[in-house]
């Protein structure tokens, strides 16, 4: 009996000490960690738009985030978009609700600033004030609209789709005509040396410049990647390459409408990324067109 008590107490104490240590370290580091993640996402987004340290983003580049929620009331679902709007000089958010056929339902102003909106808890709190039970809401996804002055520069879509092993998280950049500006793999756990090569320039840059029509009919071919194309894909923006610009343009024109060359030994991962990107672009184009038509008919003062 004495033994049992000693063991119980010993285990409890060790667990408590471990929990205390881990908990305090978590509290101390949490803020810095969140900040780093935020910086990381920002860098990925700017990188996709073609801005680097040596070529920084202009000051009138603005990123607006649109959040999409799914509202459920009994058996009927509607879509709730959190839209950044202009309120005089200040910026705020509106909740715009539309049904699944793209018909406008209603809209509510939200007590939310763009800075607050980046925190999921703040968004939930603001939404709870306007979405009354029994109606419930779940977060679906976010889209970032990049504006350069008054001009719409690009859409940035964070997304995920199943890979060979687990989900592959990506960030995709599209221009206003839905041509791919760039693809960045943010998180993946494919096999090192095989599927993990999807994050290499010579694979992911193949998506760059594919037009909306080409994406609809994009396939993966099991052919070796031609050398000249590989050099072109791996060239560093801003750095000089052994190939003159004229030839680079010729290579680009030549491979513009070609399919995606599969990675050696990782056809499944290559196909997963290609199909994932295809689906993301198709769904996004469909959604944004419906959103645009509602915004223009309802004359919502959106910021983008």
């Amino acid at each position, binding site marked *: 009996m004495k033994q049992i008590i000693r063991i119980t107490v010993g285990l409890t104490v*060790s667990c408590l000490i*471990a929990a205390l240590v881990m908990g305090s370290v*978590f509290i*101390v*580091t949490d803020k*810095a*960690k969140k900040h780093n993640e935020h910086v990381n996402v920002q860098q990925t987004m700017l990188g996709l738009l073609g801005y680097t340290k040596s070529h920084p983003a202009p000051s009138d580049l603005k990123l607006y985030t649109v959040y999409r929620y799914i509202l459920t009331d009994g058996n009927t679902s509607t879509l709730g978009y959190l839209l950044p709007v202009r309120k005089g000089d200040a910026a705020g958010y509106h909740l715009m609700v539309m049904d699944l056929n793209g018909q406008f339902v209603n809209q509510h102003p939200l007590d939310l600033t763009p800075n607050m909106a980046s925190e999921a808890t703040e968004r939930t709190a603001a939404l709870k004030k306007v979405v009354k039970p029994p109606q419930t809401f779940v977060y679906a996804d976010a889209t970032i609209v990049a504006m350069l002055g008054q001009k719409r520069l690009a859409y940035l879509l964070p997304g995920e789709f199943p890979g060979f092993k687990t989900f592959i998280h990506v960030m995709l950049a599209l221009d206003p005509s839905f041509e791919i500006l760039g693809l960045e793999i943010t998180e993946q756990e494919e096999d090192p040396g095989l599927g993990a090569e999807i994050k290499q320039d010579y694979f992911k840059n193949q998506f760059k410049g594919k037009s909306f029509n080409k994406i609809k009919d994009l396939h993966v071919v099991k052919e070796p990647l031609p050398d000249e194309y590989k050099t072109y894909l791996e060239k560093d923006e801003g750095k000089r390459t052994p190939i003159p610009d004229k030839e680079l343009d010729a290579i680009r024109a030549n491979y513009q409408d070609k399919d995606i060359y599969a990675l*050696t030994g990782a056809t499944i991962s290559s196909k997963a990324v290609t199909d994932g990107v295809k689906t993301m672009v198709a769904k996004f184009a469909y959604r944004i067109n419906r959103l645009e038509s509602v915004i223009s008919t309802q004359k919502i003062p959106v910021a983008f």
Partner: protein
Amino acid sequence: MPATTKTNFQLVSNGILNENPIFRLALSMCPAVGISTTVMNGIMLGIAVLFVQVFSSCTIAAIKNYIHPRIRIPTYTLTIATWVTVIDLVLAAYLPAAYKEMGIFVKLIVAFAIITMRLETFACKNSVPASFWDGIGMGFGFMFGMVALGFVRELLGMGTILGYDVLGFRPLLFFVLPAAGFFCVGIMMAMFNYMELVYNRNRRAK
């Protein structure tokens, strides 16, 4: 096993050669087979194991008198898990660049047999300094094993070393696949054992 009488240098070299975690103790074979596809992976995982091993060994050596023998294994696991979490959080917060490269490797470590085994057979019977040097030896021994495996597999599988193209072509894709890990570990283990055999035979002949 009584407290060790080895010098610090012997403790370190012991971990790298005599009791190399991968080739002699045959522990932590999962990462050795699964992740040793490139030299870089080997180095990263080696560094991560080195830190966790040293910190855990020192902690256990310091508190060994307070651990009830019946609950020592859960305590070891807790210690390792705590250090892994702490290292993971600190890296994520203050060294984001290193975290980007090493993050996934640090998280893998909790279940490594080599660390628990070293705490059980060494740290709980020895002083803190001796455990520190033993941890260093084991960490480098593990790194050495992983890099050796990664070198062979990366060179033969992808024709590169540390990502730089050395051969210019991919000789045998098979070496990158998980199955080849078993072959590489097996052959290297045999080499290590053969070296010891020859060494001992020569010593006896003298």
